[in-house]
C-alpha cells in the first residue's frame, strides 16, 4: 500500500437483486485513496449488500466496479478487508491463534503480538476467543486490519459494541489507514470517528 501510487475505486450504476427483490439500483460513487465514504441509510437499504458486492461476495445485478491503481494481477477481493457483523473467530482457539491464522492465511506480517497490543488485547493473547466480550471480539477483528496491509477497508457497523476507548482507537486506525493512501467504505448509523468523510445516502425502494 502507498507505494503503488494513488488508487481509485469507482462504482458505475450498480444494482443489487436479492431473492427477486431490487435492493438498490443505479448506484454510482467514486472514492480515491485517502478518502472515506460513510454509507448511511435505514435498515434494509442495502448497505451490507453494497459492501459484500465490493468484497466480491455478491455479484451485482447491474453496473460495474473498477479499481484503478491497485496491485497488478490481484482481484478486487484480494485487496479488501471485509469486516462484517460476525467476527470470523473460532471460540476454541486462543486470541493469538485466531489472529495468527488470519495473518498467515492472508499473507500478513508475522507480528501478531504487536498488533494485539495496538488494540489493547495483549494481556488476553493466550485466552480462548470464546470468553471475549462482544467489544473485545471487535477489537480482535480490528487487529486483523492492522496485521495485514490491504488498501480497501469495508467496515460494516465498525463502531458496534466498541466502548469509548475502542472507538477512539478505531478512529486512530482509520486515520492512519487514510493517511497511508487507503480507502474506507463504512456502513454506519452513528457518526464515524473521523473528521471528514463523504456520505453516500441509500434509500429504501
Amino acid at each position, binding site marked *: 500500500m502507498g507505494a503503488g501510487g494513488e488508487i481509485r475505486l469507482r462504482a458505475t450504476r450498480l444494482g443489487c437483486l436479492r431473492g427477486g427483490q431490487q435492493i438498490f439500483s443505479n448506484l454510482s460513487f467514486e472514492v480515491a485513496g485517502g478518502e472515506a465514504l460513510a454509507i448511511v441509510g435505514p435498515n434494509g437499504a442495502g448497505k451490507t449488500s453494497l459492501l*459484500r458486492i465490493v*468484497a*466480491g*461476495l*455478491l*455479484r451485482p445485478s447491474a453496473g460495474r466496479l473498477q479499481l484503478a491503481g491497485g496491485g497488478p494481477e*490481484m482481484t478486487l*477481493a*484480494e485487496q*479488501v*478487508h*471485509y469486516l*462484517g*457483523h*460476525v*467476527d*470470523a*473467530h*473460532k*471460540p*476454541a*482457539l486462543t486470541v493469538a*491463534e485466531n489472529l495468527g*491464522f*488470519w495473518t*498467515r*492465511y*492472508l*499473507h500478513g506480517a508475522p507480528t501478531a503480538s504487536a498488533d494485539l497490543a495496538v488494540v489493547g488485547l495483549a494481556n488476553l493473547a493466550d485466552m480462548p476467543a470464546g470468553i471475549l466480550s462482544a467489544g473485545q471480539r471487535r477489537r480482535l477483528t480490528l487487529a486483523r486490519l492492522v496485521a495485514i496491509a490491504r488498501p480497501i477497508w469495508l467496515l460494516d457497523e465498525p463502531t458496534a459494541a466498541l466502548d469509548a476507548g475502542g472507538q477512539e482507537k478505531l478512529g486512530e486506525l482509520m486515520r492512519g489507514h487514510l493517511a497511508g493512501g487507503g480507502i474506507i467504505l463504512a456502513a454506519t448509523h452513528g457518526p464515524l470517528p473521523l473528521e471528514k468523510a463523504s456520505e453516500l445516502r441509500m434509500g429504501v425502494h
Partner: protein
Amino acid sequence: MDALAAILVRDLRVALRVGGGALVGVLFFLAVVTLIPFALGPDLALLRRIGPAILWLGALLASLLALDRLFADDQADGSLDILLTGSVPLELVVGTKAVAHWLATGLPLVIVSPLLGLMLNLDARSIAFTALTLAVGTPALTFIGLIGAALAVAIRRGGLLLPILILPPAIPVLIFGVAAANTDVVGAVPFGTPFTILCALTLFSIVIGPFAAAATLRHGLE
C-alpha cells in the same frame, strides 16, 4: 502453501479441542459396532462373516455424522467470507479443509477399526484387509461428502438433505470397500480387483470433490 498449512493447522486444532467434533464419530462407530453383536446373538461364525461389512457400515455412518459442520461453522461465524477474500484458489482451500476433516474424523476410525475387528471375531488377515480398505476408502467418503456439505451451506437449512445427497454416490465406495475387505472371509475374488476399483473411486472423488464444492459455495453465497 503457507496459507493452506494455516488452514490445516487451524481446522485440526478446532476439531481436536474441547467441543470439537473429532471424537463424536469414533464414539458413534464404537456404539454401532458394539451393539450389533448384541442384536445378532451369540453366533460367532455369522459375526466373522459379516464383520467387515459391519465395520464399513459403522465407518460410513460415522463419517457422515460430522460432515455437516465442515462448512456450516465457517459460514455461521463469518470465516467463509474472509476465506473468500484470500488469494488462494477456493478449490485448494476446500480441498485442504477436507484433508483436515479426514485427519480429524476419518483417520481415528481407521485406527480403532482393528480393535473393533477383534470384537467381531475377525482373524488377523481380515482385520488387516478391513483396516487397509478403510484407510483407502474413507477419504473418498470425505471428499464426496464435501460436495454435500457445501450444498448444505448453499441451501439454507440443508442439513436434512445431506445424507440423501451423499449416500447414493457413497454406495459404490461401500460396495467395493466391503468386497475387498471380505475377500479373506468369502474368498470368491482376489483382494486386488475390488481394492483397485476402490483406489480409483478415492482418486476420482479427490479430484472432483473440491471443484464441485468450491463451485457450489461460490454460487450459494449469492
